[in-house]
């Protein structure tokens, strides 16, 4: 099994409060790492550090060569990062939003593939409606539709609270999708207060339990 990530001695301080200290963990290819912790424990901050957006967290990160040229920062084409802010532009349609997300990965998919992904997340019939007039859950689905695209270059998902605002069926569908991705060799790091029910996931607990 390949080790995709080794994180050593991570330390994070926010507003003079230590969120976590001496945090070590590793990430193996094909596993699902579930980052858990109470609200404000630093889950999102940790994820943003992993993806290379935030430098609030100190410590060493070493990514596997397949994901990163320099080891420290991920290469843009190999992962999806679903952030707290969903990256859904309200003045654009779901179709345009998804096509743009693909373009940012420097790839080009046939438009059928994009329609198909939107169809899978239950947005059939909403493809050409501005995202601003969709409900919160539907906007979330626009963002999640990225995970249903067939892009072989994507080896890693970093999901920040992916289940927010989804209904029961959509939650179950997403769980299955995450499991399928991991089975096909993909790696997932997610933060969520909702546990995955079926698959074995490794849990990483951060922050002092309240």
């Amino acid at each position, binding site marked *: 099994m390949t080790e995709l990530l080794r994180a050593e001695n991570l330390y994070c301080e926010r507003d003079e409060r230590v969120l976590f200290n001496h945090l070590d963990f590793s990430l193996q290819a094909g596993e699902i790492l579930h980052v858990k912790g109470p609200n404000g424990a630093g889950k999102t901050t940790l994820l*943003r550090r992993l*993806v*290379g*957006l*935030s*430098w*609030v967290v100190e410590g060493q990160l070493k990514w596997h060569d397949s994901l990163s040229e320099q080891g420290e920062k*991920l*290469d*843009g*084409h190999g992962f999806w*990062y679903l*952030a*707290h*802010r*969903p*990256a*859904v*532009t*309200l*003045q*654009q349609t779901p179709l*345009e939003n998804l*096509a*743009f*997300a693909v*373009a*940012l*990965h*420097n790839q*080009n998919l046939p438009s059928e593939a994009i329609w198909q992904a939107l169809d899978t997340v239950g947005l059939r019939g909403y493809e050409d409606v*501005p995202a601003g007039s969709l409900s919160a859950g539907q906007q979330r689905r626009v963002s999640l539709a990225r995970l249903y695209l067939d892009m072989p270059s994507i080896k890693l998902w970093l999901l920040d609270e992916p289940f927010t605002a989804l209904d029961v069926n959509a939650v179950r569908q997403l769980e299955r999708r995450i499991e399928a991705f991991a089975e096909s060799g993909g790696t997932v790091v997610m933060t969520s207060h909702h546990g995955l029910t079926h698959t074995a996931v490794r849990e990483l607990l951060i922050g002092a339990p309240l």
Partner: protein
Amino acid sequence: MMLALAQMMRRELSLANRRRADLANPLFFFLIVVSLFPIGVTPDLEKLSEMAPGVLWVAALLASLLSLDLLFRHDYEDGSLEQMLLSSVPPQLLVLCKILSHWLVTGLPLTLLSPLLSVMLALPGSALPLLMLTLALGTLTLSLLGSIGAALTVGLRKGGLLLTILIMPLFVPVIIFGTSAIQAFVNGMPWVAQLSLLGAIAAGAFVVSPWLTVAALDVTVGD
């Protein structure tokens, strides 16, 4: 890569089209300020034509400054900006697309509107091509330099004022060379030197601004 950049450009322009109200603002500002001058200051054509280059330039720059605050704001708020910084397309090029499309929808319309308003200020007709050329260069420079300020202040709730204060000093040379080129031309003196300097500033800004903007965005987003 070219495909991704073309898509970025298309996205920016279509978003600008869908947020038309944001863009009408600077144009109306320009129109109103310039047309108030003959009414408020003097109807004397000779005096007006003397002031014309300065008035047109200052008004165009302030108008263009009005829209700078929005350059990254929407993308910052909905999270698209984070994705752009993580993209495998160099973020500097993505930012350059944003800057160029900002100029296409603010600087260029202002430039095209300026001949109409220069009539109101009795600027000699022969100076029109030079006026438009310098304004085109000047507004482009403002979009380029302004994006650095916009990137630094996008994380702040009320960044508009700070943005103006940050950018204005950088802009003083541009306004000096721009207006003096036109004044020199009108007075029959050599004007090429000022125009070349204006072009040099624009070219320099074109090279450094995307890098500085991305560096500033890294700081604002990474906080």
